[in-house]
C-alpha cells in the first residue's frame, strides 16, 4: 500500500524547491536589469578588476560541467558498468551547469543585448570566439549523447557519441584554460600549464558535484547506494583531488622559481591578505586537505564523509577561482620592471575589490538555473542510476 500523504508532501516539497530556485533565478534577472540600467558601476568591478564574482561562478559551472562528464566517459569510453549507469545523470548535470554558467557569463557582458554580434562578427584569433563554438557544440553533443542512451533505437550510436563527448570536453576545458593562458602580460596567467590544470581541476569539481546530486536523488527516492560503488567513486575523487593539488602546486612552485614572478607569488601566498587566506584556508585546507582526510582516514569514508568531502571540494573550487581570477587581476601589471611605479590609474598598486550584492545575485541566479534544469529533468525523465546487482568490472 502506497502512503499517499507522504507522496503528496514530497510533491509539495518539489514545487517549493522549484519556487525557491525560481526566486533565486529571478534575483539574478533583477541584478541583470539593474546592471543594464545603471551600468557596471553598481558592481564591485572596475578598470583593474574587470572580471569579478560573476566570472567565479560562471567558470566554476563551466569547468564542473566538463568535469562531470568524466563519469559518463569512464562508462561509455572505458566500458565500466558502474559509471555507465550514471552517464545519463552526469550528462544532464553537464547540460544544466553549462546552461547556468553561460547564462551568467553572457548576462555579465556590458552589452548582453548585442550577443548576436559574437556570431555575426567572428574573430578567428580569439579564444573567446572559439569557446562560443566549443560551448554550443558541447551542448548539442551532450544532448545527442543523452539521446543515444535514453532512446533504445539510438543505442548503437552510444559508443561513438560517448567518444565524441570525451574528446570535445577535453578541448572545451583546454579552451577555458587558454582564456587565461593566452594573456601574455599578466603574471598570474600566460602559462601553458593552465589548460591541463583546468582539466584536472574539472575532474575533481565535476565528480564532487555528481556525488552531492546523486546523494540527494537517492535520498529522495529512498534508495541507498551500493557501498562498493560508493567506495570506487570515493577513491576516484581522492585521486582527482590529489591530482589537482599537484597541478596547482606545480603552477605556484614554477612561478616561485622565476625571480620576475616572485613578487606575484608572495602576494598570493604570503601577504595578499584576504586573497592569501582564501588560498590557504579556503582552497588548500578546506578544499583539499580536509576532503582527503575525510576520504582516506581509516574508519571514515562512509556516505556522510564522502558528501562532506565533495561539498568541501566545491567550496574549495570557489575559493580557488576567487584567488585565481580576482587575485590574478589585483596584482598590478609590470610595465616597468625594476621601477617603482605610481599613477592616477592605480599603476603599481594592488587593486581593491568589494564585490556587490548584484554580482552574487547574478552568480546564484546561474546556480539556480542549473538547479531548475536538473530537478525538472530528474522528475520528468528517468535519470536514476540503474545498477545491476553484480558489478562486472
Amino acid at each position, binding site marked *: 500500500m502506497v502512503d499517499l500523504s507522504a507522496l503528496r508532501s514530497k510533491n509539495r516539497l518539489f514545487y517549493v524547491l522549484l519556487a525557491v530556485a525560481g526566486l533565486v533565478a529571478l534575483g539574478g534577472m533583477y541584478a541583470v536589469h539593474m546592471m543594464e540600467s*545603471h*551600468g557596471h558601476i553598481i558592481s564591485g568591478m*572596475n*578598470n583593474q578588476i574587470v572580471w569579478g564574482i560573476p566570472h567565479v561562478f560562471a567558470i566554476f559551472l563551466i569547468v564542473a560541467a566538463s568535469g562531470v562528464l568524466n563519469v559518463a566517459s569512464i562508462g561509455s569510453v572505458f566500458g565500466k558498468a558502474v559509471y555507465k549507469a550514471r552517464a545519463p545523470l552526469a550528462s544532464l548535470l553537464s547540460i544544466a551547469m553549462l546552461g547556468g554558467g553561460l547564462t551568467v557569463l553572457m548576462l555579465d557582458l556590458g552589452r548582453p543585448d548585442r550577443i548576436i554580434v559574437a556570431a555575426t562578427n567572428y574573430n578567428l584569433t580569439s579564444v573567446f570566439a572559439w569557446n562560443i563554438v566549443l560551448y554550443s557544440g558541447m551542448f548539442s553533443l551532450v544532448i545527442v549523447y543523452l539521446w543515444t542512451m535514453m532512446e533504445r533505437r539510438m543505442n548503437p550510436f552510444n559508443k561513438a557519441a560517448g567518444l565524441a563527448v570525451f574528446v570535445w570536453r577535453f578541448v572545451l576545458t583546454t579552451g577555458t584554460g587558454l582564456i587565461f593562458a*593566452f594573456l601574455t*602580460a599578466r603574471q598570474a596567467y600566460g602559462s601553458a600549464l593552465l589548460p591541463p590544470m583546468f582539466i584536472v581541476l574539472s575532474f575533481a569539481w565535476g565528480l564532487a558535484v555528481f556525488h552531492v546530486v546523486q546523494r540527494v536523488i537517492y535520498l529522495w527516492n529512498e534508495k541507498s547506494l551500493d557501498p562498493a560503488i560508493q567506495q570506487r567513486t570515493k577513491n576516484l575523487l581522492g585521486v582527482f583531488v590529489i591530482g589537482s593539488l599537484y597541478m596547482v602546486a606545480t603552477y605556484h612552485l614554477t612561478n616561485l622559481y622565476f625571480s620576475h614572478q616572485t613578487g606575484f607569488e608572495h602576494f598570493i601566498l604570503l601577504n595578499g591578505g584576504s586573497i592569501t587566506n582564501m588560498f590557504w584556508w579556503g582552497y588548500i585546507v578546506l578544499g583539499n586537505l580536509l576532503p582527503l582526510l575525510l576520504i582516506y582516514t581509516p574508519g571514515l569514508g562512509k556516505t556522510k564523509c564522502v558528501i562532506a568531502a565533495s561539498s568541501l571540494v566545491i567550496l574549495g573550487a570557489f575559493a580557488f577561482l576567487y584567488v585565481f581570477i580576482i587575485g590574478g587581476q589585483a596584482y598590478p*601589471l609590470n610595465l616597468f620592471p625594476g621601477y617603482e611605479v605610481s599613477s592616477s590609474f592605480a599603476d603599481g598598486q594592488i587593486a581593491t575589490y568589494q564585490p556587490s550584492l548584484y554580482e552574487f545575485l547574478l552568480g546564484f541566479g546561474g546556480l539556480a538555473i542549473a538547479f531548475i534544469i536538473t530537478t525538472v529533468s530528474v522528475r520528468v525523465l528517468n535519470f536514476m542510476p540503474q545498477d545491476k546487482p553484480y558489478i562486472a568490472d
Partner: protein
Amino acid sequence: MSDLNSQRRQFLKTTLGASAVAIAPGMLLYGMAHSKSAAASDKVRWGMLIDTAQCKEGCNDCVTACNKQNGLSGGTKPTDSQFIRKISIKDVSTGYEQSLPMMCQHCEQPPCVDVCPTQASFKRADGIVLVDRHRCIGCRYCMMACPYKARSFVHEPLTDQNPDVPRGKGTVEACNLCVGRIDNGQTTACAEACPNNAILFGDLNDANSEIALKIRSVASTQVRADLQLNTGIRYQGL
C-alpha cells in the same frame, strides 16, 4: 496674356526656389559626410615619440587636453575612464625618478585585437588601434589582454558627449590617437597641449618625417619591448 505669363514665371521661380531650399541641406550633409572618403593608408604608420627628459613631474596638460578632446570627466576613480595618464617611475636601485605619459601603445601586434571575440577591437591600416563601439559586447577580455592597462570600461550612463568622439555605456574604450584630428590633418591633442614639446607625433614610415628622423638619431625604447608587440608609441630617455 502678359498677366498670365508673369504669373507662370512667378510660379516657376517659386517652385525652383522651394526645391533648392528643400534639397540644399541634404546636399550639404551628403557632401560633408563624403568629403573624407579616402581610406586610411597602410603606407602610413602613425606613432609618437615621447621624450621623458622633457616631461615634467606634476604637469598634467596632456591628460587635460585628452579629457577635453574625448569628452571624459577627468575623474580618477577606479571606474572612471582614463585614455592617457601620467606615471611616475623610480629606479629601485638608483632612486632616479622620471615622469611620463602612458596610453594605448598602438601595437603592430595588438593583443587586444587578437582576443576580441567580435572584431570590435581592430587596427586600422595606418596602425591606429581602435574599438568599434557598435560591435563591442563589453566582455572586457581586451582589458585583460592589454599589457599597458590602456583600456577603460564605461561603467555608467553618459551625458554631454563630444559628438566627434561617441562613447557608450557597457563598452570598452581607449586612446584612439585622436583619429578624427589625424584625418583632418591635425596632430594629437596631447602632443599639441604639451608645453615642453615632449610628445612628437608623426608618420613612422615616412623616412623624412621629423619623428622618423629623430628615432634614427636618438636612443628610443618601447615599453615591455620583451613582448615584441612593436608599439607605435616610443619613449626617449627611459
